[in-house]
């Protein structure tokens, strides 16, 4: 029986490594902190931290061993009085930026963070130009030049 359970657990872990979604959620009853405020902080921090051996899962969702270790580590740091940022910095020191599901705002990630606003600005500029050009007033202005205007224009061009 115990062998069966162990096999089952191993199969679960194997499935996880094979990139299949893990069954059953993560946080175990024995991990939970007594202080509800601290536990709530631990949960929301966990959602920001990547389970390093999984595919696109936070440590809050994953039931891999490493995720459990990281969850315990986060809780340990919090009980020792670290702020949220300090906990994240602690993890980045050890595992690199890869551990953060929300990349930091640094020069290397500028394209990621500024790409959206840049697209929006460019798109908005193009849209505004397009809409302005389609205005009835603008369309009227764009009417072909009269013979008089044409002559004037040619005269101006000659002057140059």
């Amino acid at each position: 029986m115990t062998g069966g359970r162990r096999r089952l657990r191993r199969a679960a872990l194997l499935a996880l490594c094979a990139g299949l979604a893990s069954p059953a959620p993560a946080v175990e009853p024995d991990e939970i902190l007594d202080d509800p405020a601290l536990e709530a902080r631990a949960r929301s921090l966990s959602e920001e931290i990547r389970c390093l051996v999984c595919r696109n899962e936070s440590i809050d969702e994953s039931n891999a061993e490493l995720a459990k270790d990281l969850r315990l580590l986060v809780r340990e740091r919090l009980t020792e009085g670290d702020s949220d940022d300090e906990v994240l910095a602690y993890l980045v020191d050890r595992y690199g930026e890869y551990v953060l599901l929300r990349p930091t705002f640094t020069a290397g990630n500028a394209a990621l963070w500024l790409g959206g606003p840049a697209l929006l600005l460019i798109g908005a500029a193009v849209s505004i130009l397009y809409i302005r050009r389609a205005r009835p007033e603008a369309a009227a202005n764009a009417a072909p030049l009269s013979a008089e205007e044409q002559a004037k224009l040619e005269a101006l061009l000659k002057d140059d």
Partner: protein
Amino acid sequence: MIAEFGHFALVLALMTSLAQTVVPLVGAQKGWVDWMRVGTPAAGLSFVLTAISFAALTYSFVVSDFSVELVASNSHSLKPMLYKVSGVWGNHEGSLLLWVLILTLFGACVAWLGGNLPDGLKARTLAVQGAVGVAFMLFTIFTSNPFTRLEIPPLDGADLNPLLQDPGLAFHPPFLYLGYVGLSTAFSFAVAALIEGRVDAAWARWVRPWALSAWMFLTIGIALGSWWAYYELGWGGWWFWDPVENASFMPWLAAAALLHCAIVVEKRDTLKSWTILLAIVAFSLSLLGTFIVRSGLLTSVHAFASDPTRGVFILGILVVAVGGSLALFAYRANDLEPGGVFSVASRESALVLNNLLLSVSCGVVLLGTFMPIIREAWDGEMISVGPPFFNLVFTPFMLVLAAVLPIGAMLPWKRGKIGKTVRTLLPALIFAVSVLALVWAFETGRSTLAPVGMGLAAWLVAGSLWELAERAKLGRAGARETLRRLSRLPRADWGKAVAHAGLGILFVGVGGIEAWKQEDIAALAPGESLEVAGYSYRFDGVERVRGPNYFAERGLITVLDDGREIALLTPEKRFYPVAGMPTTEAGIDSGFFRDLYVVLGDRQGEDGDVWAVRGYVKPFANWLWFGAGIMSLGALLSLTDRRYRVGAVAKRKPVTAASPGAVPAE
């Protein structure tokens, strides 16, 4: 024998698709009508042959012919019939054949239903559709043949991944493919129009039903996938911003933008080059999605076994299709403009804003999905881009979109007054603001997103309904007159209101579940309880059960509300011995206002009867899928509008004139 027959039919389909590509295209360039008309029977034949091939593969799965390698590695004789059939597309090769089948089906639909299309446009559209078919058939036959035989067949199969043995997931891929591939038709129309160098209101009218149906199928497919993830993956998440999810979401956003701007082309003969570009981009994103899933480039929980040759082949298709069509676009775009005149406050401008928001949000998702690869190639730095990033950067677009939608949807064409439209919508606005205030007061500032989300949801639903009421002169004319006007409204207008209201309902679901979900976890002995949000989950023990091809431990959990029993939930931990894989089945009591959701965790200690139990309360969870369903219903209503119905246009004068006057702009 049957498998060889299927293989042979697929090769024949490749030949007819080649004919479908070359003959009508040459005919259209040379002006030979009889050559152009070859497209119609060729497209029909390609579909019939692919269908025969697909039927042969399905037959092999149904009778469990384990001498076929694909059946042996993805099926099992004990599997329920539904999953034997859905196993056909639960793997790379079979799903590719399904993709080709749907591609040829859409080609055949254009051929059979497009009787009113001009010969040239129809021939070129079918040719482009045929070319896409040729590429994918070559891909199937040369890199992913589903009909390969095994020299020594095994006694039984290796079973389908148990996670895929689920009714929700059985139908998720077909709908998703109907959506992805439906966009190929819009793409074919766009490229055909570029080759012809002409886009007019009639073109937009022909292309819009295809964009609309593709979007509808994508909506259903994505919603099915999300629903499945919610009840199957075991923690009640409904969207994970996984690369493969994003791969289906980006075409959805692009298709949503496309079907809106196609209206502008149809009604006002402007925004033409943008519409063409969007049609190309939408299908390119579909191809990109296929590439992501099948190349293993982005690791994901969805990825099929990755194979570099396949990745390179799809990349080839992607480069030729995207590069070729964009080059053609660059060459032709100047011939397409200019178009109609409209003022700043007008429906046209509102739809430009809609397209701006949808396409930039799509760009943001694209950027986030691919940034880890780009960054790694750039300076070798490994980064992760996950849900916290996407939620932060994507949500604002949707909030702005929802805030302006009811106003934009009611602005008149050509020239309107924003103040006047807002005044008309005042009752809806008041309703929305009261909902916002009410929710704010109720939850005493726990989250700001919830009141805003609920307020916007109310704004969307009330705004859409109020627009219908206004057009029916509710309260200003008699009840009989109102009813008469309502029944006379075009189906497309009903569809628009219903789809927009559906988005509002979806907002309720997102807001409720994200802001107010509650959960608790505890190790429980039989008789003990867990309290979540006022509900008491009483653990009554675990029983062993045996399914057709799995064993399960089933928890018995009684939910009590104030001491009154309201539900018996039976979450399971299943184990599929053939695949050697465990799965979880959540116990869910679905309700109008909340889902009670419970998952059985691990046994605590080796042989005790104490188990970890996780109880959740998920407010408004059902509204998510219900909202998506309403949105697709809206699309369906629009599709039945007589303007888009086949034949209806033919009976009227075929609209080829490019003048905006040809289509009444309301």
